[in-house]
């Protein structure tokens, strides 16, 4: 519930102000997330595998002394080409006072959108559940799926938090 209300506020804010979004690719689709939630973008390092975790949770890394879990969105949403090489990109997110890294197919650019530029999302066949989709951002020819990354990362299906913690979010 808390998240939903926050969204409403956010979207009313964005009506006037222009915000910046980081665009990343996952399969053939482009997704945008609030750039303020992004801490950094880095390459894919060796992760330490966590037993008894879903397959899309690759494990944990040492991010300057913090133990940070890495999720591979390509595995989670079953898209793209799951290989790990020097070009594999990890977006380190700062959501809900936690740090999480997510592996995507690539990061393209940062775009600036105002609230008007974001259209409500129709029911469509994106790989992501529409619950986590705020709308569609239109930039020229491109159509970018705007993701509520906090909602996604705290969801049960990502299994990134203990149920008790997630419930308090």
């Amino acid at each position, binding site marked *: 519930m808390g998240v939903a209300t926050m969204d409403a506020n956010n979207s009313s804010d964005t009506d006037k102000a222009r915000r910046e979004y980081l665009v990343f690719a996952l399969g053939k689709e482009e997704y945008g997330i609030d750039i303020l939630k992004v801490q950094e973008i880095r390459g894919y390092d*060796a992760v*330490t595998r966590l037993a*008894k975790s879903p397959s899309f949770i690759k494990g944990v890394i040492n991010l300057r*002394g*913090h133990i940070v*879990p890495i999720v591979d969105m390509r595995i989670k949403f079953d898209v793209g080409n799951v290989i790990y090489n020097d070009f594999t990109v990890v977006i380190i997110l700062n959501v809900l006072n936690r740090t*999480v890294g997510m592996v995507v197919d690539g990061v393209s650019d940062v775009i600036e959108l105002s609230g008007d530029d974001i259209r409500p999302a129709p029911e469509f066949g994106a790989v992501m559940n529409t619950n986590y989709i705020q709308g569609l951002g239109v930039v020229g020819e491109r159509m970018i799926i705007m993701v509520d990354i906090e909602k996604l990362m705290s969801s049960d299906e990502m299994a*990134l*938090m*203990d149920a008790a913690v997630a419930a308090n979010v």
Partner: protein
Amino acid sequence: MTFDMSQFHQVFFDETAEHLVNMESLLLAINVQQPESEDLNAIFRAAHSIKGGAATFGFSDLAELTHVLENLLDKVRKNELPLSRDIVDASLLSGDLLKEMLAFHRGDEPVDEARIAVLKQKLEQLSVPGAVAVPSPQVAQPAAAVPGRLHIEIYPPVAMAVDELWQRLAALGSLQIMQALDEQADPVIPALALLSTESPCDDVVEMLAFLLPPESFKVVDDVTLEDDGVGFFSLPVMAPSGDIAFEEDGFGLFAPLPASTASHNADIAFEEDGFGLFAPLPVAPASGKPDVAFEEDGFGLFEPLATAPAVAPAPSAPMPVKEVVRPEVRAATAVAPGAGENSIRVSTDKVDLLLNLVGELVITQSMLMQYGSALDSVEHENLLNSISLLQRNSRELQEAVMSIRMMPIAFVFNRFPRVVRDLAGKLDKQVELKMVGENTELDKGFIEKLSDPLTHLVRNSLDHGIESPEQRRAKGKKETGLLTLRAFHEGGSIVIEVTDDGAGLRRDKILSKARESGLPVSDTMSDTEVWALIFEPGFSTAAEVTDVSGRGVGMDVVRKNIVAMGGRIDISSMVDIGTTMTIRLPLTLAIMDGMSIKIADETYVLPLNYILESLQPKPSEIKTIAGRGQVVSVRGEYLPIISVAEYFTIDAPPTQPDKSILIIVESSSQKVALMVDELLGQQQFVVKNLEANYRKVEGLSGATIMGDGRVALILDVAAIVRMNLQKAHGELLTAQLH
């Protein structure tokens, strides 16, 4: 001039707390039969200082209670009243209440008025026998309000008949002659009188000056003296010879100086230990100024200047005094020592952050070291030297930062003299408490968590361990039982022992009790296993339940608390010799001693405190039980083998137990053998939790960062053992169903 007194409150709180602690430890240590007068004085002094401070800062509740206490203590130290256990008890209780009051002024719960009233009454009752020489507190308290109570001292030579002098004085108000002039005595005993009069002090002085030579009389305004007058003007009565300047410890006394010395030299006597102490203020007699009086330890009591813990003369008093400092100056210097022994309070978050950063630095440094080792040592000599310098510096930095979190265990131990004393009294036992290694340092996080389990163990030892004096006599032991608290470092852990020389644990009793409670026991169990039974929930061997212990809640909680701190507790005991409870804790919460192990390509860390031994089994020692997995025989004991690879579903070709290494671990008295591929080595690890950014993972208690910067996971041995047990039970259940 108005002072913001509240700026000194913290100093007062700190000092009072110190005095209270001091008083308590003295009271606990004192020999009731033959108290050292030094100690009695010190106790009195503590109470007195508290009162002085409290009155100065306007904490009247503290001042009132201490006042009553002080009266009692004063009589004791003057041998007017024999010291008794009751007095010690009441004084300790006063200390407790004062602490609570102090807490209240610091923003805590208010103290129950009724308790204070009861205690005051008790203290007053105790001080009744022998209460002759001392003015009663009721009179003394408002003494300041009585208009013009003047103390007059007359020294020879007296030009006129003393009687006539008295008459003239009596005309001014009610005169009470406390001591007659005795010119024959050597040294001369001055005449002393107490005049209650409406006339201002100056008038009296003028009148006397008219009749007598200036050096032969002295008038002191009572108002300015210590507000209760205890111990001041009773002195001449006690010491008629008149030559006693001070008491042994030299404080709080305005000695009526003999004429010879009473002339113009304003004597100031200082206590040996530096408390300013003021001789009778024989200021230029004619000045007749209400002279200021000083408390002995620095809380100035006199009205307008009362803010500073000051010892200072009224500005007009022309005293040729050394060591008198202006109040402002004193105030400044007084704040510094009171502010807490040159320490600063820092939140533990900040310290932890520092610790984290230093941990990072150490890892970065070891990476540098690794890269450096690949370089040519001649060509890059300077760089390599710098790296090794960096290594030394960062290690030292790490140690220094770690030491911030360390505190001496005395913080926990210090409460026990009191606990033991109270309990021993309640149980009618004689117990001597010995504490060894109070300065052993351990993580601050443990200090708070240790106190409950330790208290429980001490209570247990007193209640169940140490016998009553009669029983001890019958057994041929000393009547006084000995309870020892000992702390020391051993390897990477801190060991705390609670040892009593009591009855010891009774094997048969524990076993029969265990059977009653339906625990699976057998007569062939080893002693250690039997002793471990008392940690089972709901287990108590006390014949009867006392309000001290024996309700059967506790030992299991004790063990749970200790284990939660990453430690463990062991018992060794011998009938009639005694029992030792040994607690082992890691040095700090943030650092853990562990064994790094390798399974396939993955590195895990096993906390060292669970590990009993590791071995490479012979094929003949491995037995397979159908449907139940494999067991290994270790010196006749069959232990289930848990494959860590299997447990963590690591993709690796299944290994045979006889090709790998078995680590025998123990948790909750259950031993299992963990099968791993390789032992990498033992070292200390900085523990990080997984939940900060992720969630709890079954079988893991946290993570750590290895020297190469990679994350290694720490195995939760307790959980693994528990799950194995559940699995075994589950299989047993399914087997029975089929």
